[in-house]
């Protein structure tokens, strides 16, 4: 592998990792506070993407130059509303019954995937980024001398999401409440905090992040049928590798998975998926709680 090739693949790994981080962090956050394994997380990704598409094309066709930004907002809002509804109508009242919640989210994802197909059709869809982000910019060392602008932008989005979440978690009262809830929900409740409401809020944030990922990911790659499963798998592997409910863990997990996938793809294209699986198995053997996860007791 030449240096050029290595640099290109490494940058690919980094940009893919950025997207994976945005997808998985919402999943990880929801799990962290509520111990809910949201198997409908991939569905939230799709809901966000389709909500974005629903407003994107009409605006774009009228030549509205901020169509992508509006789509982003719609995607975030659409997924957040869906997430809140899920939490309020079904998951909230079975809080603590983790397996049952997991099964419920599986049921929801089956139904939602089919309904999305019914509403939006089976055609793959895609956003196109604003002109400023389209095309490529000059990047030294990589194979062709330039690199897709939007993929570099993905790194910026992931960094913004990571830093933003860190600030929320560590510098705001909401963050304190969320972290306290992760430690001891009952005690937090006894401090007068309405934990159920906090759960809804956290679910909204986690779902909104999935929606954000939907529009960003839907700009980098087309989306449609079966993307929900693919991104659910990504979220699962990222948090299993990095550690459930941990922000730095999710970042690390996303980085490792992205790199494993890209280097796997360029070295052994047909078996690239095995690299990711192998990564997961090794981590599980050494640290079942994930690289930066808290010990499971």
């Amino acid at each position, binding site marked *: 592998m030449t240096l050029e090739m290595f640099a290109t693949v490494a940058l690919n790994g980094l940009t893919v990792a950025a997207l994976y981080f945005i997808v998985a962090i919402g999943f990880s956050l929801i799990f962290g506070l509520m*111990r809910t394994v949201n198997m409908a997380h991939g569905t939230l990704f799709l809901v966000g993407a389709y909500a974005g598409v629903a407003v994107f094309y009409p605006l774009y066709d009228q030549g509205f130059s901020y169509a992508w930004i509006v789509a982003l907002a719609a995607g975030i809002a659409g997924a957040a509303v869906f997430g809140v509804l899920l939490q309020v109508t079904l998951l909230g009242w079975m809080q*603590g019954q983790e*397996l*049952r919640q997991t099964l419920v989210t599986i049921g929801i994802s089956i139904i939602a995937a*089919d309904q999305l197909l019914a509403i939006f059709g089976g055609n793959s869809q895609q956003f196109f980024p604003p002109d400023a982000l389209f095309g490529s910019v000059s990047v030294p060392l990589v194979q062709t001398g330039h690199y897709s602008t939007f993929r570099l932008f993905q790194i910026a989005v992931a960094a913004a999401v990571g830093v933003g979440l860190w600030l929320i978690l560590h510098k705001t009262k909401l963050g304190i409440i969320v972290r306290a809830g992760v430690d001891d929900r009952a005690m937090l409740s006894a401090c007068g905090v309405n934990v159920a409401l906090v759960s809804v809020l956290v679910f909204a944030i986690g779902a909104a992040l999935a929606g954000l990922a939907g529009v960003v990911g839907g700009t980098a790659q087309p989306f449609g049928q079966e993307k929900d499963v693919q991104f659910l798998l990504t979220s*699962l592997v990222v948090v299993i590798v990095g550690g459930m409910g941990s922000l730095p863990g999710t970042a690390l997990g996303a980085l490792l998975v992205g790199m494993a996938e890209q280097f796997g793809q360029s070295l052994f294209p*047909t078996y690239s*998926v095995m690299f990711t699986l192998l990564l*997961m198995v090794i981590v599980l053997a050494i640290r079942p709680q994930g690289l930066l996860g808290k010990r499971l007791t």
Partner: protein
Amino acid sequence: MSTGNALRSSSALVTVSVLAVLVALPFVLTEFWTTNILVRAMVYGIVALSLTFLAYYGGLLSLAQMVVAGVAGYTIAVSVPGAIPENSLQIPYSLAIPLAVVLATVSGLLIGAIAVRTREIYLLMITLAIAVSFYFFVQANVEYLNGYEGIRNVLGPDIFGVPLRTPYVFYFVALATSFALYALVLYVSGSQFGLVLQGIRDNPRRLSALGYNVAHHRIAAFGVAGFIAGIGGVLITIYNIGISPGTVSTHSTISILIMSVIGGLGHPIGAFIGAVIFTIIDTFAADLYDRDRFNTLIGVVFLAIVVASPDGVTGLAKRAGDLLRGLRLIAPGAVAADPTLQANVPSKD
């Protein structure tokens, strides 16, 4: 000794009568119902049985059972004569089937070893990740597994000179196999190993303090489940006249889970009841509901069961029959996992 919660003597009569009905059914039903509903339900029900076995007796909800079935299916597909593309092994079914079941058992043990330190939702996540990865793997492997297309024309062996695929022959083979495996599960549940397994489900810490190696028993449980799922995988492959990545896709993995949950994870028979219900809905949804939307229908049924009766149809029946047990999802672990309840138990030291 009693056999835990399984077969009580009073239900022996029920078992015999149900069996009698099942033996008589193909002579009453159309061939379509016999082969495409009942046989299909049984061959997939066997895989669901392996899931129910793990979930009910071991408290281990695994989504990797279709992987294990797939290992068995692919094993016979790449080794028997007649399969397309042609393989270089060409070993007869009489050897290929035992080999497939052995490999399935081994892969069950392997999955158990990977997942042994995790439980409940973690186990569910990890096994799902394994399942999806396996799907992508078989799809990507062109050299041996023929990638996306899979392997076709796996016709199955002859039974006393009659092809297994002959409808009635296949029905009775599937019935006998299902019943044997069902009986095996019931027997094992009352065995030394089965009791230990239920002990792990109820209280792994205590079991360890009694001198049992919990990890080894858990892995062994995955091995037993692998054996069962492997036999299911062999039958599924012969039933489908071949195997392809679609056989082990997420869709199939989730279908097995749906069967088990609809039927109820509270008793091994639930796997078959669930499989029959699932197969009927899957086959006739197009007639019952908007033709293109049967995934919505199956999803709604599944969701309704999870919300209304977490222990499925058998649970409903059980509750109607006796109110001995309260609401129990999968294993008693569900309640212990309630963080608010955990906080309640006064810890004094």
